[in-house]
């Protein structure tokens, strides 16, 4: 059984290029397989359970190697600071989250109303309150515009870093304010004007 595993799963070791291109964890998996094969060979005569467990030990040891590498690699590889993304977007994300919350509440209220759990009067009153709040949040989100432009810029920059050309952008513009829009957008991100869907 064990010899079968080692022959069928071990890639051809002669092909050095393939091995060099492997992600590190695959190297360790390979090492684990080789180690397990050796263990099986050395400990012939022991009970199958013991041999299986020894193989598990070897595999776990390979995992230790991989994890150790994972611990050390970050020091070699450069990372740019992560502070950029967190701080600016935080408040906005919170508003966005609150908006979803309010929208969900509206949905829930409509459902409860349909289930007959809320009276007409309450439904009207609470519905209005929630909708007003949601509209307020939408306005707040609009006020912090230029956000999508920021994202676009960041995206282009990162793509350029990775050596990938940015995807061609849809040449759609809002008929009201002239802001560019993506191909699938149904409303303008700037002024909320309804866009003609092609």
């Amino acid at each position: 059984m064990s010899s079968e595993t080692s022959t069928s799963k071990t890639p051809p070791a002669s092909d050095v290029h393939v091995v060099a291109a492997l992600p590190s964890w695959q190297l360790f998996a390979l090492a684990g397989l080789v180690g397990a094969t050796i263990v099986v060979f050395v400990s012939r005569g022991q009970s199958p359970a013991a041999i299986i467990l020894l193989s598990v030990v070897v595999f776990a040891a390979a995992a230790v190697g991989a994890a150790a590498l994972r611990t050390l690699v970050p020091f070699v590889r450069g990372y740019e600071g992560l502070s950029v993304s967190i701080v600016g977007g935080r408040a906005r994300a919170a508003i966005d989250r609150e908006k979803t919350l309010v929208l969900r509440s509206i949905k829930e209220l409509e459902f409860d109303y349909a289930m007959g759990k809320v009276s007409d009067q309450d439904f009207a009153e609470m519905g209005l309150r929630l909708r007003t709040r949601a509209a307020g949040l939408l306005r707040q989100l609009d006020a912090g515009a230029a956000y999508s432009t920021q994202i676009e810029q960041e995206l282009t920059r990162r793509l350029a870093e990775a050596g990938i050309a940015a995807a061609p952008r849809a040449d759609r513009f809002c008929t009201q304010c002239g802001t560019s829009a993506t191909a699938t957008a149904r409303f303008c991100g700037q002024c909320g004007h309804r866009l003609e869907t092609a």
Partner: protein
Amino acid sequence: MASLGYYLLLAAFVVCAYAAAISVAGARRRSRALIESGIGAFYLLAAIMAVASAVIVYSFVVGDYSIRYVQRYSDSVQPMFYKLTSYWGGLDGSIMFWVSLLSFFGSAAIYVNRERHRELIPYVVTVISVVEMFFLFLMIVHNNPFQTYLTESPTDGTGLNPLLQNFYMAIHPPTMYLGFVGLTIPYAFGMAALITGYLDDSWLRAVRRWTMISWLFLSIGLGLGMIWAYEELGWGGYWMWDPVENAGLLPWFTATAFLHSVMVQERRGMLRVWNVALVITTFFLTIFGTFMTRSGVVQSVHAFGDDPELARLFTIFMVATVVVSFGFVIYRLPLLRARNELDSWLSREAAFLVNNWILLFSAFFVLFATMFPTLSEAVRGERLTVGPPFFNQWMLPIGLTLLLLTGIGPLLAWRKSTVQNLRDSFLIPVTLGVVTAVAVALLGVRVWTSGICFALSAFVVGTIGQEFWRGARVRQRATGTDVFTALVGLVARNKRRYGGYVVHLGMVLIFFGFAGEGFKQKEEAQLKPGQQVKVGSFVVRHDALSITDDGQKQMITAHVTVLRDGKPFAEMYPAKWIFRKHEESPTTEVAINRGFAQDVYLVLATFDAATQTASIAVDINPLVNWVWMGFGLLALGIGIALLPDAVFSFATAPLPANAATTALIFLAVVLSQGVALAQDTIPAIFRSPLERQVAGEIMCNCGGCRLSVSDCGMMNCHGKSGQMGKIQQYIAEGKDHDAILATFVREHGGYDVLMQPPNRGFNRVAWLLPYVVAVVALLGVAFTARRWSRHEAAAPDAAPIDRELDARLEDELRNLD
């Protein structure tokens, strides 16, 4: 191998310390490299623990008896399966198992959330690492599982405790531990949120799923423990309020409370401080439960023995946890301020408040009652017993109230319900409940608690059925499909809600099974071959006694035929197994014939091989299997709630495939045990009502069971027969109930012979305090609710919504689900 294992533990400790330190440094200096390295170190810890676990299991398999732990908990004739599970059979190994599980679980949680909650992750790594460090430290200095014998090593082990050589016992601890360990993850995220100050709701999202998973494991763990107790201990019941069982139940209560109150925060942004506090309390209770059972502070069947050093270490850790955690809560209070507003008492928020109050009170009560003997010993130097009667007296009304709330809660709307709505939605469920109550009364059920329980169950089932039905109809009208598709769509759209309802149904089944306890019948009879005894509608005939041996143990089996209405009902084989290495404590192999209506539960109590006489205890346990089915349904419900959206996204797989399979496997496992293993009628051993009553109140002094005389499963035990004899003697002397109890206390020299403390002196605290706490907490809830409801009516903004914005809103709403 032993030294390799020890070095691995040392390495794990170092890696842990590194992960904790580097993560804090990384987070403070905002260095991605350091943080990534910390995450890597945590994975490394998991890998190291995997190697160490494999090493110790290997030692068990090859029988390396130079390692003390291996020598003490296994032997060469043990079946392979139990050799593997011996890993967690003792204290040292179970700590190591705990550490391993926490590192695996933690790695998974970190891996899943590393991008989504990037700002929290470094502190999550730190918190989990610090918890791990404590347990690793414990192993290194105090409970090293790899400790070897210094001089000559024994050639064979002493073997795992026979009681633990049971299928359910092998899988019960891992599930339980997974539940316990899993609850560390919400704690770590909560603490990370407190430390960083990112206290919006995002950490809750990360935590919700993990809490649900842990809760599932905890519930199933408790269920498996019950099945084990039922099958292996042989006293006919499944829950005896043993401290270790209670230790598992405590975090279950608080985690349940959290799962409910988290909805209030998500929906309404309320209860922020409360939720953080609940997460911390839950984690604390998991640690406290471990402490309680591992250090010998309380007496219990499961406890591993007295260990003051361990108790001291645990105390330090617990105090530190509490101080640091709540210190951060206080420090962050300004950020936790929430918009609390309660529109009406007749709202779901209010129902959740009451639910939390009851669950927290349950947790408090169980904790208090479990610790009371220790408390009493510390204050008055008198050891008492707080047994099942005391717990049952309290938990029965609490449980029924909770069941009632399960039915009421879903019927209330968020924010506000009006009289009209109430009448509309309560009509069917209440009718169902009342009809059941009347039917139960007409059928002549005289156990009123069970009757109430049946009625409430019907009420809750009515509620849930109505929720599904009405929801499906609404959905059907909205989408224009058939009812079934609408039902699936309904569940898919709000998996957590409807999964939760399924869990509620599971709870109803469990309660339904509990109610069966009220109709339990229990008899005992000494039978020669051919003789029979009548219990309820069953006749139990003893046919023969056989004695066999399989090398590891001697097996004495009684061959019994059970007849019902004169027709053969089942062949059953109750047995006693005497393990070679543990001859002083033979195990009871119960024979159970399972059925939907009742279990016939036979125990071979004593035997006389020469005359082939067997003394057989017969229990008729109605409805027990509904409890196990309830646990299956509970797993199914959680499965639905946890399913990823993708499962529902294509119409070809309308049913939650995984969940159903999981539950089916669970049910199959439970029910496959259903086939039972084991002529003149003689009367069962007669017991007068007084004798039964007293026997239920006096503790058996056999020294291990901690049950009342009437419940002790070891029926040939010297303790029980002696006590029974005394009771009979006193009754013959004409003593009344109180006099007999007084005599027992005098002769025993302490009140701990009674199953519950007498209601006087300091003990009155035990009887009074729960009332006081309940009332104070209720007042607290009422006060907070009043304060929240006294907000000024929020006037809607005068500014009308312009049409443009309104259309956008509608569009967003449409896109929401």
